[in-house]
């Protein structure tokens, strides 16, 4: 009833191969985009921006990045936090070294630098696989965070060892620094998230994405049918790190404003983003958004219910959150390994046939 395909004719291969083949679905996405770009910036206040929407968009970018590596190319990485730190420190160095250049270029360059670092740490993936590789990526996590803490050049010899985002403007609006408005923060992150999601969606649909998936499903067989594992794996690491680097740059420059490597980009951040990918759905762009939304909203929800309603202490709520997230991870891995994205797809299937059960 809701998802009717009747009358939804396609007369060319182009139509047949589009991202959202159902017309209603497509319009739904356009409507969401229109609301996100035109309505939300007008009504957003700083609580919604700082507690929900900006972290959601930034983590969604990071989750897409990790999903490309883990969900599409099958290389599990626990070094996401370290790569986010690379993005953050790269954008910081660029912002302070070249103040005249627009911030968007800095963020993109920070992504490119992270891509190079990611490829470097991705090199061992040619020899080692599975959880040997997962553990090996921890080397990136610990080494990079240590490096940013210990080498004063990275934090411009500041006394506190922190990095602070200087104020930079775009079209006359402050987008970093303390003067930034909620809607400016939100719009910058939204533009990046939408553009990167579009890039990721089309990359994974094309020949590059299919090579990644071939490597994921069976790497030796993929090699035999002519996929070069070297280029496939390294491109997955590069693209993934590019996304993660941009997420790290935005997290530091736009969202936090100040950061310290071991606090903001510790191992827990790596796990958090891995959990977003698992709960959202491995190998799905929509799933990255769903997982990020879920794990950003869960603490806010628990805080509102447990702390504000029941009057429980904050630390207890935090511990219960740990339990819930842990249990959910196990639950999703057992019951629905394709995560929220699969649940949403099933709902759509049902809605297409509703009210008929079969």
């Amino acid at each position, binding site marked *: 009833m809701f998802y009717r395909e009747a009358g939804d004719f396609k007369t060319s291969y182009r139509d047949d191969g589009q991202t959202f083949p159902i017309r209603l679905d497509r319009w739904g996405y356009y409507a969401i985009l229109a609301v996100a770009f035109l309505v939300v910036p007008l009504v957003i206040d700083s609580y919604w921006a700082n507690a929900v929407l900006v972290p959601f968009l930034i983590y969604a970018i990071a989750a897409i990045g990790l999903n490309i590596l883990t969900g599409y190319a099958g290389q599990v990485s626990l070094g996401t936090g370290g790569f986010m730190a690379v993005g953050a420190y790269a954008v910081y160095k660029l912002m302070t070294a070249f103040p005249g250049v627009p911030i968007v270029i800095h963020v993109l360059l920070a992504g490119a630098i992270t891509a190079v670092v990611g490829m470097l740490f991705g090199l061992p993936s040619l020899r080692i696989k599975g959880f040997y590789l997962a553990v090996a990526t921890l080397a990136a996590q610990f080494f990079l965070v240590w490096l940013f*803490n*210990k080498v004063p050049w990275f934090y411009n010899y500041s006394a506190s060892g922190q990095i602070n985002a200087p104020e930079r403007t775009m079209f006359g609006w402050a987008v970093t620094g303390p003067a930034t408005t909620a809607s400016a923060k939100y719009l910058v992150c939204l533009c990046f998230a939408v553009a990167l999601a579009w890039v990721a969606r089309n990359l994974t649909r094309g020949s590059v994405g299919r090579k990644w998936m071939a490597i994921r499903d069976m790497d030796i067989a993929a090699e035999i049918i002519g996929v070069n594992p070297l280029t496939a794996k390294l491109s997955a690491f590069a693209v993934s790190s590019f996304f993660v680097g941009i997420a790290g740059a935005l997290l530091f420059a736009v969202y936090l404003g100040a950061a310290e490597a071991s606090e903001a980009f510790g191992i827990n951040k790596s796990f958090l983003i891995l*959990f977003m990918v698992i709960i959202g759905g491995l190998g799905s762009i929509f799933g990255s958004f769903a997982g990020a939304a879920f794990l950003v909203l869960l603490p806010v929800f628990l805080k509102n219910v447990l702390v504000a309603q029941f009057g429980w202490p904050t630390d207890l709520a935090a511990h219960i959150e740990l339990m819930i997230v842990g249990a959910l991870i196990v639950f999703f891995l057992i019951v629905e390994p394709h995560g929220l994205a699969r649940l949403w797809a099933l709902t759509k299937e049902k809605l297409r046939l509703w009210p008929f059960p079969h």
Partner: protein
Amino acid sequence: MEFLYASEILLNGLMAGVMYSLVALGFVLIYKASGVFNYAQGVMALFAAMTLVGIMEGRVPFAHLINATFGVHVSSFGWTVPGLFAIALTALIMVGLAIAIEKLVLKHLVGQEPIILFMATIGLAWFLEGLGDVMWGADVKVLDVGLPQGISETVETATNNWLGYGFFIDRLDIWATLIAAVLVAALVGFSQYTKQGRAMRAVADDHQAALSVGISLRFIWIMVWSIAGFVALVAGIMWGTKSGVQFSLSLIALKALPVLMLGGFTSIPGAIVGGLIIGMGEKLFEYFVGPMVGGATENWFAYVLALLFLVFRPQGLFGERIIERV
């Protein structure tokens, strides 16, 4: 003098390595018998140590939660439990935990890829960490089951008379080394010479074949996770006595991972040798190279060493050769 100081560091590193090996052993046991790479091993050590302190001090479990829900103020029963009895009780709880994990998690994940199982144990680690905190509170706890602590004066005077330089060695480290050695010997003996141990190795070799000769897979898994829980308890006691029972204790699991990568996931001797190499290597690296690069190299040295090593020998020192077929 320089040389003697370096050898003191080496010795301390070796004993730290024994502690890493102890945690790594828990990993190897579970991996060998069920192909599960158990990331939660470190949190299990933390959980065991927390439970042990909780029982010894007679704390009320979930006191925090009960207080918040019912608005009361309960904290402890008002009794204390002697160390050995508390250890036995904790061991029982760890067996219960093993059964619960098998029933709720592992049973449903049979035949999944190892990496899925690995991620499930990361989820398990978060859950257990939250559970431990809710049950016993997140405060730093002092654990004292009567193990000797402090600088060993006998060693210091002996080395002073003999070499003219007193070695500073913690008595707890010596005891930990001894206990770890006994535990390793017992585990090796168990897996080599008992019926259950042979069954365990059979399961490790081939699940299907083991099932077809009448070995109960589920019993073996519960047994192995119980043993891992017991090893976690021993590791938790050692590390808890040394540095207090707190969150950072669960991070020793992270230290045990490179130990395993170096030694090979499937090898008990590998875990021991790997632990010794890492413990020794990181202390010496910190001593010789640390001052040049700003210190705190212990955070990453083990990982980078393991990573570089794996590039040349992907199966680790003693691991089985990985053979792949299409």
